[in-house]
C-alpha cells in the first residue's frame, strides 16, 4: 500500500523499513542458522571451529549416532511427541468444535452460565493447573502413562470460544433449519453441513493445539518419569543435563544440538506449508 506522496517519495520512505526488516531477519534467523550449522559438526569441531561457519561435514554421522544412542531412545521420543501432539490436537479440536457449535446454535439449561464461565476459563493460567492435575492423576494411577500428557491437553476453552464466535458469524441458522425440515439428524447436520463450513476455524484450533503440545515441557516433565515415555522436549533436556554433568566426555553436545534441529524441522516445515492458514487465521479480534 502506498499512502500519500509521489512515487519518488514512497521509494525513499521504504528504505528505512527495509533496513529494519533486514536487521529483524538477521535477529530471528541467526540462532536458527547456528543450529543448522552446529548440527553438521562433530563434537570436537563444535568446540573449536567458528560458531557461525561450517567445519567438517558430519551431519549424517550425527544423525546416525543420535538414533543409536541409548538403544534408539531418540526415535521413541520423536514418535511419542508426534503421538501426544497428534492425539491431543485431534481430541481438543473435536471437543472444541462440538462445544462451540452447541453454544452458538442451541438453547439449553445452564448455557448462559457456561458461556460466561468460558471467558474465565481462558484466563486460568495453564501451568497453574499442572501440579494439581498431577496430584489428581496420581490418585487414579494415571501418572507416568501417556494419558497423563494427552488427557489434560484436551482442554482448550479458547478453542471452544473461537469456534463459537466463528459459527455465530458464518453458519446461517436458515441452513440448519432447512436441513431439519429435510429430516436430517443433528449429528449428520453437524458432520455434513457445519463442519465443512467452519473448516478455517477448525484448522486454526488444530494447528495451535498441535504446536502447544509439541512444544510443551512443563506438563510432561511433571507427569512422566519413565524415559521411554518422554517427548522430545523432556528427553533433550535430560541428555543436555547429562552432557553438562559429564562435561561432554560421554554424552555428547553434538547429539543435543542435532536432536534440537530435528525437533524443530517438522514444525517449521508444517508452518511454511500451512502459512495461508495462519496468515489469514491470526487475529486478536476474536476475543471481544
Amino acid at each position, binding site marked *: 500500500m502506498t499512502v500519500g506522496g509521489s512515487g519518488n517519495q514512497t521509494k525513499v520512505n521504504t528504505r528505512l523499513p527495509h533496513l529494519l526488516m533486514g536487521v529483524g531477519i538477521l535477529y530471528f534467523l541467526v540462532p536458527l542458522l547456528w543450529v543448522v550449522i552446529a548440527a553438521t559438526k562433530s563434537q570436537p569441531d563444535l568446540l573449536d571451529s567458528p560458531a557461525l561457519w561450517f567445519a567438517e561435514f558430519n551431519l549424517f554421522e550425527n544423525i546416525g549416532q543420535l538414533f543409536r544412542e541409548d538403544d534408539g531412545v531418540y526415535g521413541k521420543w520423536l514418535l511419542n511427541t508426534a503421538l501426544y501432539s497428534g492425539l491431543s490436537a485431534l481430541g481438543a479440536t473435536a471437543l472444541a468444535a462440538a462445544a462451540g457449535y452447541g453454544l452458538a446454535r442451541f438453547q439449553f439449561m445452564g448455557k448462559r452460565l457456561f458461556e460466561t464461565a468460558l471467558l474465565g476459563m481462558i484466563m486460568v493460567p495453564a501451568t497453574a493447573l499442572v501440579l494439581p492435575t498431577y496430584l489428581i492423576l496420581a490418585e487414579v494411577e494415571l501418572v507416568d502413562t501417556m494419558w497423563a500428557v494427552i488427557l489434560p491437553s484436551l482442554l482448550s476453552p479458547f478453542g471452544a470460544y473461537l469456534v463459537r464466535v466463528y459459527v455465530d458469524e458464518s453458519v446461517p441458522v436458515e441452513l440448519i433449519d432447512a436441513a431439519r425440515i429435510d429430516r436430517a439428524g443433528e449429528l449428520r447436520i453437524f458432520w455434513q453441513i457445519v463442519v465443512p463450513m467452519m473448516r478455517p476455524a477448525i484448522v486454526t484450533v488444530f494447528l495451535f493445539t498441535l504446536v*502447544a503440545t509439541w512444544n510443551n515441557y512443563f506438563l510432561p516433565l511433571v507427569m512422566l518419569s519413565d524415559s521411554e515415555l518422554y517427548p522430545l522436549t523432556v528427553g533433550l533436556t535430560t541428555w543436555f543435563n547429562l552432557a553438562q554433568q559429564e562435561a561432554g566426555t560421554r554424552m555428547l553436545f553434538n547429539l543435543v544440538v542435532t536432536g534440537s534441529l530435528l525437533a524443530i524441522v517438522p514444525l517449521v516445515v508444517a508452518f511454511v506449508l500451512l502459512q495461508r492458514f495462519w496468515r489469514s487465521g491470526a487475529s486478536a479480534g476474536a476475543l471481544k
Partner: protein
Amino acid sequence: MTRSLPITAPAAEESPPAGPVESRSRRRSRRVTAHPVAGALFVLPFFLVVVAFLIVPLGYAFWLSLSSKSLATGVRFSGFDNYVRAFTDPLLLDGLLRVVLFGLVQIPIMLGIALAGALVLDAVTTKFALAFRLIAFMPYAVPAVVGALMWGFLYSRTFGPFADLPTLVGGDPIDFFSVSLLLVSLGNIVTWAWTGYNMIILYSALQGVPREMYEAAVIDGATPVQIALRVKVPAIKQAISLAAIFTVIGTMQFFTEPAIMARFAPQISAGYTPNLYAYNQAFAYSDFHYSAALSFALGFLVFVVAYAFVFVNRRRGGRK
C-alpha cells in the same frame, strides 16, 4: 515462557472487524434453535474435560492447600496458614518481584517491536516483507526448551559467537550468565521467541481495519507515519491490549527458560520465578500442600488480573 492460548480467529477477510461483531452476534443469538437435548449433548464432552482437568484439579489444589504435613503431627488442617506463609515467604516474594520487573521491561519492548513490525508489514508489500513475515514467525514453531538450549549455547564462551566479540577489540568477554546480565539474557530469549507471533496477530488486526478509515487522513494531508500512529494504532487498540494481557499471563508463569538456563547459570535458584518455586516445593522438597497453595495463589492472581483487564477493556470498547 509458556503460552497455551493462541490468540487467533477465523480468517480475517471472512469475519467483520471487532466493532460490529458484538451487536450482530447479539441479534443472532436470539435466533438459536431450541433443541435442548441435542445442544447440551454437543457441549457435554467438552464440559466433562473442563470438570476433570480444570474444576476438579483447582478444587483439589485448594483443599490440599488448606492442610499441612509435618513429621511430628502428620497431615492436619491448617486453614489459610499456607497462604499466610506464601505471602510472607521472602523466596516467593523475590521471585514474584523478579518476574514483575522482568515483565515491566520485556513486555513493552517486545510489543513495541511487534507493533512497529506490523505497521511496516501493513505499509510495505514487497517480496522482502513477505520473507520477513515468515522468518519472524518461525521462532514460534521452536519449542521453548530448544530455544533456551540454543541461546544457552550461543551465549556460552565455548560454543557461541557472541561472548568473545569484545576481545576482538581488546575488551573483556561478555558473561551473559552473570547476575547483572542474566535477566537481560532471558529477556532476549523470550523476545526472540514471541515477537514474531505478536507481530502476526497485530498485523492481522490491521488487515481487518477498513481501508476507508485512512482515506480521510490522506485527504487531510497526513504523512504515512502520522496515519500509522494516529489512525492505525488506535484502530487496533483492542488487539494490542489482548496481546499484552496474554503476554502478562505467559510471563507470570515463566518456567521453561529459567529452568533450562539454570544449567548454564547456577545462580538461578529454586525460587527464581514463582512457578519454578512451586515446582521445586513439590518435586524437590515433596511439600505438595505448600506447592498446591503456591499454584493456587499464583493461578488466582493471574486470573484476577487477566479477567479484570478484559472486563475493563470490554466496558471501554462497549461505550464508544
